[in-house]
């Protein structure tokens, strides 16, 4: 497996984007139904309009702040509990069922609780993002840390690393990094979804608000033009994570 240079990757991806856009445009024109599938050209025009009116950046600003705070909180929480579940049987048997249960519970069922306890202000919205994003992190941390490199643990112990927590930080996390990063990538995507859900279910605002408002007006091109930054945000985060990962990886 020869590593492909970043230039190659970028070139292939650009070709991919072009093919995708053309396919979309052609399909949309063939379908000729702007209500369900507007052509790319219309979406781009709508996007331009959103950018020029300043609406998009205002909404994005709000959303990104929410997203970042939520993702950081989710990472911390997912990490602590993932590590607990992976390394302690007691914690596993006491906590795991509830975490699994919590994570498969649709957020919408929890919205009234979030409302009562945290309100629809910033804290409430952050909670929704956390609920969405914490799953992949927690599950990856649990998988990654369960999977211990026995020989390296021995090395660390022999040089004076004592106890579960120092071992966690010196060896296990580092060795589990690829799995953790894979989880983080998915978490970034989920965080974006959580953010949109918080902004459409709990209280309209940010990008989620844009999507919902244009949706209600059946302005599908604007809806897609608002979703597009979301998807780009997801890709952007994933790329960022991939870059961090590359730096941390030794090959």
């Amino acid at each position: 497996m020869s590593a492909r240079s970043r230039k190659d990757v970028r070139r292939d991806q650009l070709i991919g984007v072009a093919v995708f856009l053309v396919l979309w445009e052609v399909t949309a024109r063939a379908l000729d139904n702007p209500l369900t599938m507007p052509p790319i050209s219309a979406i781009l025009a709508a996007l331009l309009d959103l950018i020029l009116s300043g609406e998009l950046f205002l909404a994005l600003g709000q959303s990104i702040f929410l997203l970042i705070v939520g993702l950081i909180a989710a990472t911390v929480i997912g990490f602590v509990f993932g590590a607990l579940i992976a390394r302690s049987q007691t914690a596993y048997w006491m906590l795991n069922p509830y975490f699994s249960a919590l994570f498969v519970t649709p957020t919408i069922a929890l919205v009234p609780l979030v409302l009562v306890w945290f309100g629809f202000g910033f804290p409430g919205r952050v909670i929704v993002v956390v609920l969405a994003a914490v799953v992949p992190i927690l599950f990856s941390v649990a998988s990654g840390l369960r999977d211990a490199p026995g020989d390296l643990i021995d090395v660390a112990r022999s040089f004076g690393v004592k106890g579960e927590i120092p071992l966690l930080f010196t060896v296990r996390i580092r060795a589990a990094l690829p799995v953790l990063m894979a989880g983080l990538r998915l978490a970034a995507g989920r965080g974006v979804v959580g953010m949109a859900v918080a902004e459409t279910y709990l209280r309209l605002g940010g990008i989620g608000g844009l999507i919902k408002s244009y949706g209600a007006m059946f302005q599908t091109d604007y809806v897609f033009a608002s979703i597009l930054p979301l998807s780009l945000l997801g890709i952007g985060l994933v790329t960022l994570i991939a870059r961090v990962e590359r730096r941390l990886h030794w090959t």
Partner: protein
Amino acid sequence: MKDATVDVPAIELRGIRKTFALSDDENAQRVLALDGIDLSIRQGEFLTIIGPSGCGKTTLLRIIASLILPDDGEVMVEGETVREPGLKRAMVFQTFGLFPWKTVIDNVMFPLQVRNEPAETARETAMHHIRQVGLDRFVDAYPHQLSGGMQQRVGLARALSTGADILLMDEPFGAIDAQTRELMQEELMRIWQEEQKTVVFITHDLDEAVLLADRVLLMSRGPGRVRETIPVELPRPRFDYDVRGHEGFAKVRGHLWQALRNDLVEQRAEETS
């Protein structure tokens, strides 16, 4: 400094027994890896261990390092029972045990960082030992960019950098070519004498076992037992004369050779019967 405790053995093993389960299952078949090992190692002694592949040498060393606990028996370091790895003992691993995500320098600095030594002094100490093993050109390389012998030397530098009194070395020169090996041996001898360390050194090279040792421990094919210990009373420093030509050398070497051969013959006899 050590005079007060000079009579206490550096390491003492009493009735060490160790079995391994061959699966997670509680009723799984168990392999007897070590069976009743008693051993006392003097402070400042250089003990080499030799024995057939799979006889339990590595297991014994890991028990001395307290990386695993014996099923029975106890390990004492300077008179005190130990059940946890300690800073007094530093290990060189047979499979190198380098962190693939750390560069050479970071691997060597690892034990020092664990002890929270200031970065500056840690770096200096590490560099010193990297130079000692001849890898100064590769300080910033990752393990996967090094040859087998180079990786092994990084493991060696790491153990040396700890300054531990007791060095536990598992075939530390196994992947190194003859010449470099000789250099390393000389270096190790020098450090051992200057710093009065206690060394337990596994090797499968008979010459090396005799050349370095105050005493050679010969283990018998599994279940691992001490077959015999043979004192090596050759004058030191041994690199200043043709030690291999010394009659004492040939005698010990020949004796070991014969004993190992017998072990093999016994085993074959067992197998065919």
